[in-house]
């Protein structure tokens, strides 16, 4: 492209980004005069907000990066972004921890003869790769590229690269490949795609196995949709699953299935609806192929009551806009493909395809393969036919089922080149390590699903001597004397965008960081014959106890985020276990075996076995055991031969009590609320007539009285708020040892409380900023006091650390610094400069993000106006995917919190104590 265009785009996109603000390092006591002044609009000491895209999981949520003093200090969901529209999950919040991860590769490494890794320059490294490629070609061995899921321009560049250098691109690797679903849709409609589901368009959602709120394709997006859907009255959500997932916990009703009986359920429904004759009829040959499942059989197989099954069918029939989503655990089973097929048929039969299920906006999984491809790779490695093996931004070694023995077979490749960011165990399996830049350090774009273009642009200079994948491919092209049309990947991108987008679009793209592009409608035809052929084998045998479900983890996705300290610090929302792995078990079953929390048991399947501590999981089926999938890499899981999906449900698992107990960091002191009405059932009411309630006169608030409302109907317990709070407020991550002692530092925590029936309610608990706060008067030095704007302030510098305030806090939300908080370099760069670092011996707690209030006030005073409603958004509220948390001024009668605090659903926790909190919760229904 021409220089002029490039410069124009550069101006358009980079704007202020690249120039470090006049940053000052207080501790060093220096003031720096830079060569050139930061250009207009950039003020030293003021933060920048740059668009980007989250790379922590394939969903590709839009980001707003807060850059302060040249350092990215906070990630926020980008408002209006088609994928996540403002929300961001805990993994997204933790992405910064990957950027500043102490174990990041700092420069290229090569394994020497002794097996030690020696640093070398990029130049040497790339030359080496080129030579090896060449040599392998001459020896007639194949050079392979195995990459994680890529989208957008990078995919194209990769293909280009492979074509040019004769490298064979393998189908991309994702363990959550949704292969069964894609294959099923391929069989049924000739579209091997992952459609985009529109929950917000539905009035009845029946989800089978798909963990929409944890890892299924785009959790934040689906959570957002759910929040819109639930606002329309009459919305019903039924979730069917063998185990217990966060998704199930949030559904209107959770249908507990016997493992493997999903297909039976679906065929029953198909037949019922067919026989009702209301909905579109299915082709005859399909009907014949359908396993004939009567209500009785269905009941026996699924374990649901016959009456319930009938009612389910009726509900589906009566619903105007029903939506069925099958996936996740449901398709990760020996008969997963059938389940997917039947689901597809039901979707077709009830007319969801094309309306609530959009193939036109299909999720971008086209390039992703399945485990079959890994199997093939393994075979080829066996036969020593692989020269250079490039593995880019993927960790098959840790994720792929142990049965494949990839680590062993990898060794057979000529040169194993790993493009990765962390120097972890799987990285050590390579011969040559090329450090990848973090998405926040690099240029790029993403197309999470058809019709969405999302921008990546550097928010800060690379911390280490690393490069983005694109840059590496281009370099390799150039070095192998192949025509590389662009000097840099940035230029390459600009070129592509320049070609694809017109002026207006470019403008928009640069400003808002994303684009919604028009999509072409996809014609769909049900191919009955092919489908009928595949339906055989849908029958299900009743699972033999125990069944072990390897549930996907909201904390680490498929395990890739497990290496981020923050995510081990945050407890799993259902079990409240932070550090360590555990086996979830139904209380009844545990009682039968006289097992309690933390008791060790040995689970064994086939020749594999593991010793795990037990954690009681109310609501879990008695014959089902559950463990977070990412915690069991060594489990030898079978692969579904038909779909290439990983089978995540094991039957006939053996269980043996070991009699000893292990240390396990369970944060919840009790999983029941002992009828204390923290989450009130309608019965509970402890209101006291005000004149009786207070001994001393209410103190006045002048202009503002800050308050928060938390809508428990919207809260899904995903703990994104907690993660956001950690990052925003520099909350120290203290690690396993202190968690075992109950010394976690979270300012905001999600408290799950289970009722007798095992239904869970989630209560985000943070400082309630009480009007009559018990913590304040007991402080001997005024470190805790109540400020005129209704904040319960903790002055760290004044605190002497008597800990009386924490003792006297009925909500137990104050945290004491038992040690001097440690920030292993370069993590300290992540610290939010707007907040003081707390020292050892000081009490700390939620401040209602006082620094954000201060920022808003500063702005308001510049414009000589009061702070507007919604101008102050706390970190937790910003991150919440469902917008359950609102913050504002209680004195402003127009404000949202004023309205919500007066809704008939509003209540305050422990109102009977007369503390008069400023946090109002809105009870369900």
């Amino acid at each position, binding site marked *: 492209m021409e220089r002029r265009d490039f410069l124009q785009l550069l101006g358009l996109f980079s704007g202020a980004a690249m120039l470090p603000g006049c940053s000052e390092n207080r501790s060093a006591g220096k003031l720096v005069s830079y060569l050139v002044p930061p250009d207009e609009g950039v003020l030293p000491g003021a933060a920048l907000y740059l668009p980007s895209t989250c790379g922590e999981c394939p969903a590709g949520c839009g980001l707003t990066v807060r850059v302060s003093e040249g350092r990215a200090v906070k990630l926020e969901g980008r408002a209006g972004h088609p994928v996540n529209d403002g929300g961001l999950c805990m993994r997204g919040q933790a992405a910064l921890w990957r950027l500043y991860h102490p174990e990041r590769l700092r420069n290229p490494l090569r394994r020497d003869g002794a097996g030690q890794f020696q640093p070398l320059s990029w130049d040497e490294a790339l030359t080496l790769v080129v030579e090896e490629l060449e040599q392998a070609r001459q020896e007639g061995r194949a050079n392979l590229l195995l990459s994680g899921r890529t989208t957008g321009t990078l995919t194209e560049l990769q293909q280009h690269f492979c074509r040019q250098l004769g490298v064979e691109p393998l189908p991309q690797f994702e363990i959550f490949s949704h292969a069964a679903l894609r294959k099923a849709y391929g069989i049924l409609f000739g579209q091997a795609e992952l459609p985009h589901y529109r929950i917000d368009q539905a009035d009845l959602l029946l989800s089978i196995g798909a963990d929409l709120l944890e890892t299924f394709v785009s959790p934040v997006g689906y959570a957002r949709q759910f929040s819109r859907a639930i606002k329309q009255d009459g919305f019903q959500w039924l979730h069917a699953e063998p185990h217990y997932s966060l998704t199930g916990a949030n559904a209107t009703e959770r249908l507990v299935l016997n493992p493997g009986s999903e297909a039976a359920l679906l065929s029953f429904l198909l037949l019922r609806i067919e026989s009702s004759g209301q909905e579109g009829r299915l082709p005859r040959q399909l009907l014949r192929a359908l396993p004939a499942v009567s209500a009785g059989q269905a009941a026996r197989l699924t374990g649901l009551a016959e009456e319930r099954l009938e009612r389910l069918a009726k509900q589906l029939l009566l619903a105007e806009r029903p939506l069925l989503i099958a996936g996740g655990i449901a398709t990760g089973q020996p008969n997963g493909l059938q389940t997917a097929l039947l689901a597809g048929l039901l979707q077709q039969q009830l007319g969801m395809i094309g309306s609530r299920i959009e193939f036109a906006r299909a999720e971008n999984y086209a390039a992703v393969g399945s485990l079959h491809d890994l199997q093939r790779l393994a075979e080829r490695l066996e036969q020593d036919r692989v020269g250079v093996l490039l593995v880019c931004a993927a960790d098959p070694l840790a994720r792929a089922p142990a049965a494949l023995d990839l680590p062993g077979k990898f060794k057979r490749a000529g040169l194993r080149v790993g493009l990765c960011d962390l120097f972890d165990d799987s990285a050590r399996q390579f011969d040559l390590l090329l450090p990848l830049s973090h998405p926040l350090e690099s240029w790029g774009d993403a197309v999470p699903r058809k019709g969405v273009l999302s921008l990546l642009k550097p928010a800060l200079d690379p911390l280490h001597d690393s490069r983005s994948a694109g840059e590496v491919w281009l370099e390799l092209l150039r070095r192998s004397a192949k025509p590389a049309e662009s000097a840099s990947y940035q230029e390459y991108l600009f070129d592509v965008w320049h070609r694809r987008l017109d002026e207006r679009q470019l403008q928009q793209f640069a400003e808002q960081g994303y684009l919604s592009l028009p999509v072409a409608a996809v014609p769909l035809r049900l191919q009955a014959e092919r489908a009928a052929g595949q339906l055989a084998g849908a029958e299900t045998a009743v699972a033999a106890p125990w069944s072990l479900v390897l549930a996907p983890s909201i904390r680490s996705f498929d395990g890739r985020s497990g290496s981020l300290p923050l995510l081990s610090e945050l407890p799993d929302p259902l079990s*409240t276990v932070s550090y360590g792995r555990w086996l979830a078990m139904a209380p009844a079953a545990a009682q039968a075996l006289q097992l309690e929390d933390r008791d060790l048991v040995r689970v064994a399947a086939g020749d594999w076995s593991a010793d795990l501590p037990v954690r009681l999981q109310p609501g879990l089926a008695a014959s089902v055991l559950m463990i977070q999938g990412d915690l069991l890499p060594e489990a030898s899981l079978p692969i579904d031969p038909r779909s290439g999906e990983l089978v995540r449900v094991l039957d006939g698992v053996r269980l043996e009590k070991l009699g000893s107990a292990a240390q396990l960091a369970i*944060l*919840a*002191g*009790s999983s*029941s*609320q*002992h*009828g*204390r009405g*923290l989450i009130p059932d309608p019965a509970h009411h402890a209101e006291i007539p005000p004149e009786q309630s207070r001994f001393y006169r209410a103190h006045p608030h002048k202009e503002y009285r800050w308050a928060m409302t938390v809508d428990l109907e919207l809260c899904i317990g995903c703990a994104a708020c907690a993660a956001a709070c950690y990052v925003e407020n520099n909350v120290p991550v203290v690690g396993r040892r*202190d968690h075992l*002692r*109950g*010394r*976690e530092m979270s300012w905001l*925590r999600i*408290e799950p*409380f289970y009722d007798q029936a095992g239904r869970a309610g989630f*209560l985000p*608990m943070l400082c309630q900023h009480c009007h009559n706060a*018990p913590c304040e*008067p*007991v*402080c*001997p*030095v*005024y470190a805790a006091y109540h400020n005129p704007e209704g904040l319960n302030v903790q002055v760290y510098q*004044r*605190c*002497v*650390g*008597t*800990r*009386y305030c*924490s*003792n*006297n806090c*009925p*909500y*137990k939300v104050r*945290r*004491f*610094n*038992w*040690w*001097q908080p440690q920030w292993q370099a370069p993590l300290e760069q992540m610290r939010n400069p707007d907040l003081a670092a707390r*020292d*050892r*011996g*000081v*009490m700390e707690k939620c401040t209602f993000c006082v620094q954000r209030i201060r920022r808003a006030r500063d702005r308001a005073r510049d414009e000589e106006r009061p702070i507007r409603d919604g101008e102050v958004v706390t970190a937790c509220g910003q991150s919440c995917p469902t917008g359950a948390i609102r913050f504002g001024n209680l004195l402003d009668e127009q404000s949202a919190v004023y309205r919500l605090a007066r809704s008939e659903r509003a209540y305050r926790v*422990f109102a009977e*104590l007369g503390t008069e909190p400023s946090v109002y919760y809105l009870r369900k229904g």
Partner: protein
Amino acid sequence: MKSLAAREKLEQDVLKGLRRPGKWYLLGLACCALLFLGALGLWGYQLSRGLGVTGLMHPVGWGVYITNFVFWVGIAHSGTLISAVLFLFRARFRSSFNRAAEAMTIFALMVAGLFPLIHLGRVWIFYYLFPYPSQRTLWPNFRSPLVWDVFAISTYMIVSLVFFYLGTLPDLAIARRRLSGIRARIYSVLSLGWTGSHGQWKQYGRLYLFLAAFATPLVASVHSIVSWDFAVSILPGWHTTIFAPYFVAGAILSGTAMVIILVVPLRRALQLQPYISIDHFEAIAKILLLTSLIVSYAYLVEYGLAFYGHNQFEMELFRYRALGHYRALFWLMIVCNSLVPLTLFIRRLRRNLAYLFAVSLLVTLGMWVERFVLIVTSLAHDFDPYAWGTYTPSWVEIGITCGSFGLFFMLFLIFVKTVPVLSMSELKERL
């Protein structure tokens, strides 16, 4: 000439205590000093690392340290009780104990005063708790019970010191006469040149009365204030009105036990049998019994009322105390403080020193455990079930606790060798 001789003998007997120490004494002293130094080391360790080295956690922010504080303040109580209150009630047997008891008060207070400092997160700015004009123009928060503590403890310390010193004044003058060399010098300076003229005696008598009158309400109020450290909170099991009388009784119970623990061996070692008779011990034992009864009454009322009001938090907490994680300690406390002392209703046991000594040991233990149970259970099991947790002291805390005993006994041993352990000028009246 008989009473004169008796007086002379008394002086000799009592001042025998000031003779050159024997090896057992030195050994004991060394052990105590060692314990104390060890504790100092541990404290240093804690200061360098942070309070993480203790077992304290969320939600249990107070543990062994505060337990020790309350315990030692409690010990400090019977000292002033025995000298001041019994003086007002003209109980004759007072004079056999008061000197030792007052000394005990002072030492116990010195030890107690350390623990709030040890438990502070940032002890290097402890002076924020004192009202002094600073450039910050910030003052302590007088609404906080912890500030009341600062005032209560220091007041109690000062008044006790004055009281102790006044009582010793004439005896110092005697020591001055009977000893020689530099010690005589020291004693004579300390005795302010006391001559025993009727003018001095007159003022002495009246001052003693005033001080007793001031000290008596002080005794009650100080431990009431300590009890309010807990009672003003809203925690179930802490926030209850009976705490003030209950703590005072408990304090006197433990203190009296400690007096017995100290005086029984003292009487033996210094052959003071003629001056400290069994009847005196019986009288003290009766106080022990009475206070134990009051404490038991408080236990009963606390428990009864927890269930009387149907307050779910209270009920659950008291269930937890008796049956929960700390139940063993709870029952130990019941046995030691309520049941064992009941045996003192039997006169023969009251008058059996060995038995009395054993009971006192048990009571002291029991009272320590009581404070521990009371402090920890309420914190471990309060309002929000999610935040429940259990606390186990770390070896640092245990070490420092032992050290506090070391310090206490070290000070007392030094006292035994430097100050007449009986108030001679008072005993002379009895002769």
